């Protein structure tokens, strides 16, 4: 996959199985964002192929990919600041075919704070609330694969903890999640499997618990040994 004139990813192969949380860890510029954006069809892969539920979606348009059940909670949240919380959520259900009101109720029950803020402009929410809104908006499409790009970025530690708990909860309810994170320890703790990115390539992969114990990951991302 190449991104503009610079090749951002080389020979990356990842796999996400239904019901899993898979985490991509790696430093800034390692290519995690490029990977999730390529899956969503925002960036085009020069070579290679993306398969989703047995279908080749490499060259499909973003709107069709979203309609088929993949959603992205982008880095920086991507909320629409001048629209209300509810309007943001309704936009998340743009391709949702079922009962949107029912869906909205369900989402509000998962994120009670958003219900309180329902009529408020999304731009007036705190950073943590905006991130929750972004996740909740993704859920409004009832995705089969939810991709979260750096969701913990810029959030206070206590909020990050709450966020990862939310992600685990969602997974327990059956959501399949692909999580891209720099916050390696917490991400790996809630994940099943992980891939460690170097610059544009995968340097290590495997079971999340094994990755936490791996000395290479500890040195590079977890600040040395935690013993």
């Amino acid at each position, binding site marked *: 996959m190449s991104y503009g004139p610079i090749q951002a990813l080389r020979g990356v192969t990842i796999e996400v199985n239904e019901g899993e949380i898979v985490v991509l860890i790696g430093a800034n510029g390692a290519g995690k964002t490029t990977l999730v954006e390529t899956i969503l069809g925002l960036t085009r892969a020069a070579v290679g192929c993306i398969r989703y539920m047995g279908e080749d979606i490499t060259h499909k348009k973003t*709107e069709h990919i979203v309609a088929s059940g993949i*959603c992205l909670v*982008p880095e920086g949240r*991507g909320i*629409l600041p*001048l629209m209300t919380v509810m309007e943001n959520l309704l*936009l998340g259900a*743009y391709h949702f075919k079922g009962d949107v009101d029912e869906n909205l109720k369900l989402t509000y029950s998962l994120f009670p704070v958003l219900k309180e803020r329902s009529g408020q402009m999304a731009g007036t929410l705190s950073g943590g609330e905006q991130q929750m809104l972004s996740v909740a908006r993704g859920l409004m499409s009832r995705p089969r694969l939810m991709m979260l790009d750096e969701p913990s970025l810029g959030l206070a530690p206590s909020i990050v903890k709450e966020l990862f708990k939310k992600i685990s909860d969602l997974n327990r309810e059956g959501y399949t999640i692909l999580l891209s994170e720099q916050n390696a320890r917490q991400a790996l703790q809630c994940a099943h499997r992980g891939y460690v990115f170097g610059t544009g390539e995968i340097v290590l992969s495997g079971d999340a618990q094994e990755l936490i114990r791996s000395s290479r990951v500890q040195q590079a991302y977890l600040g040395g040994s935690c013993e």
Partner: protein
Amino acid sequence: MEIFVAQIINAIALGSIYALLVTGFNLLVVVGGIFPFAYSHIVVLSMYMCWFAMKVTGNNLLAGILAGIVSGTIFSFLTEPIFRPLAKRQAQLGSFIVAMALALILTEVMAQKLNMGIVISIPQNLQGREALIKFGAATITAGQIATIVGSIVSFLGFFYLLYRTKQGRAFRAMGQSPFSARILGIPIVRTRIYSYLIAGLMGGISAIFLAMAIGTASSSLGDNLALKVMAVAMFAGVGNLGGGLVAALILGLAEGMVLAYLPGDWSQAIAFGMIMIIVMIKPRGLFGTMV
């Protein structure tokens, strides 16, 4: 006093037309992602179509109105492919230049080919000059009432669409963040095409009201209107849909009042002078750029 009220009504009618034009223009700025200089030229072309339809049907009112509205919608739709590559690259300056080229071509077509370049005059029955309300020396014409009521209905419809429907949310999302809109799976190209259709519809409607208000049309009207629409949009803050509406009414009132009470035709100089001062004091426009 009666004359003053009549002048105010006249100015509001004029302002309503500007407001329709500016709203269509702003929709193309916000959702279409272009700077649609040629929008007003398309509106004038629709006035020609209205006139032509009435001519061939023996001044049939309905035929004229339909022809104006439908042709406005279709012409606007037809220009979309021209701007598509530019909108995709968010090349707004480029789209401005292409739009100017389109405007020049349309102007020359109208000047050379339509009615052999002679100014067209709109049939009396569409103009609606007969007084509907009379008080003292002042009158309010059927055309003015139709324009004001028609504009209000159009705006209610438009803002309902924008703020209460799924399509409207998609429009606003595209205006606020094209990136977020894509991520949410909003079909970008199709949504842009819808914005051209809606803007064209509003353009067609304003073509009818312009025909009523001015009673004539010529090839030079496009440039004249385009400057005003552009200026009002800047005065309010480009892309600010609500602000554009208010600013258009202000321009209409200013122009109408100047025309009515000052000797000689200073309406343009004063209206544009006002806009110049506002933009100097508040470079982002009176209400700021906002979606």
